[in-house]
């Protein structure tokens, strides 16, 4: 297992860890308030978690993320050192003012997910594409790890 999720899914944590995590988040919130820092990015971005599939192929890793209804321009893919981060926002389309909702099941708002890339990944040659609401990121493998920060444009 070379690519692993960076942030642990809190839903899967046993209860004591959930409480522990909550305590930590609350503490962090108070800390940042008193210090006057801006809110922790991680907390603000945990509104919804898009589903992800990751597979390893001979020459690359493929990360797929379900982002239906998200505007291409609202998706940001970055690779910094060995962490691949996808973040963005899904905005609720407003067609008319007199919308009378009967059902709201879709999630809206910002999202952020990060993954630790294996040392073999070539972060300078990552390619991303977006089709039918699915973001696909291809991370080629290389002989050696390259530590640098780059911006990946979503095409």
């Amino acid at each position, binding site marked *: *297992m*070379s*690519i*692993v*999720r960076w942030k642990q899914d809190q839903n899967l944590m046993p209860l004591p860890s959930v409480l522990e995590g909550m305590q930590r988040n609350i503490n962090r919130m108070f800390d940042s308030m008193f210090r006057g820092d801006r809110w922790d990015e991680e907390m603000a971005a945990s509104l919804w978690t898009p*589903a*992800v*599939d*990751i*597979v*390893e*192929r*001979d020459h690359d*890793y*493929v990360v*797929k993320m*379900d*982002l*239906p*209804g*998200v*505007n*291409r321009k609202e998706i940001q893919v970055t690779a910094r050192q060995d962490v691949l981060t996808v973040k963005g926002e899904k905005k609720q389309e407003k*067609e*008319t003012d*007199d*919308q*009378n*909702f*009967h*059902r*709201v*099941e*879709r*999630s809206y708002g910002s999202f952020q997910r990060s993954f630790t890339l294996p040392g073999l990944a070539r972060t300078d040659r990552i390619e991303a594409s*977006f*089709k*039918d*609401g*699915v973001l696909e990121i291809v991370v080629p493998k290389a002989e050696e790890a390259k530590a640098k920060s780059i911006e990946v444009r979503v095409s």
Partner: protein
Amino acid sequence: MTTRNEVAVVRNDMPGHLTETESAIVYTRPTADVYETEDSFVVKIEMPGVSRENTQVRLEHETLSVKGLIENKGGSEMNVILSEMQGSGYERSFRVGDGIDRERIEARSEQGVLTMKLYKKEEVRPREITIR
């Protein structure tokens, strides 16, 4: 696991007459938003990975059914590291009442979201009444 499709299973419990085949597609229920405007009902269904060509919208009697197949790019050998996406297709149905104009149902697919607009019949639309 190499693809998101399950292998088709053929049951031979009714030899020679009728054979039950299990679908190779695992359908999941997609999430939807439904809202009402003055002249219509709008249904937005999330079906990421489904192209316009692989989407089927069908109105039969009172049932409006939506089906979508996820394009499968698998095939070559790969090692699954994380698998959170479920199923290889989406399926969901709605009951269409008398107030809907069956001849006026529009559907379009964009960025993995299917939007259907079901127009209300003229007689059920709100009407301004002039006071004499």
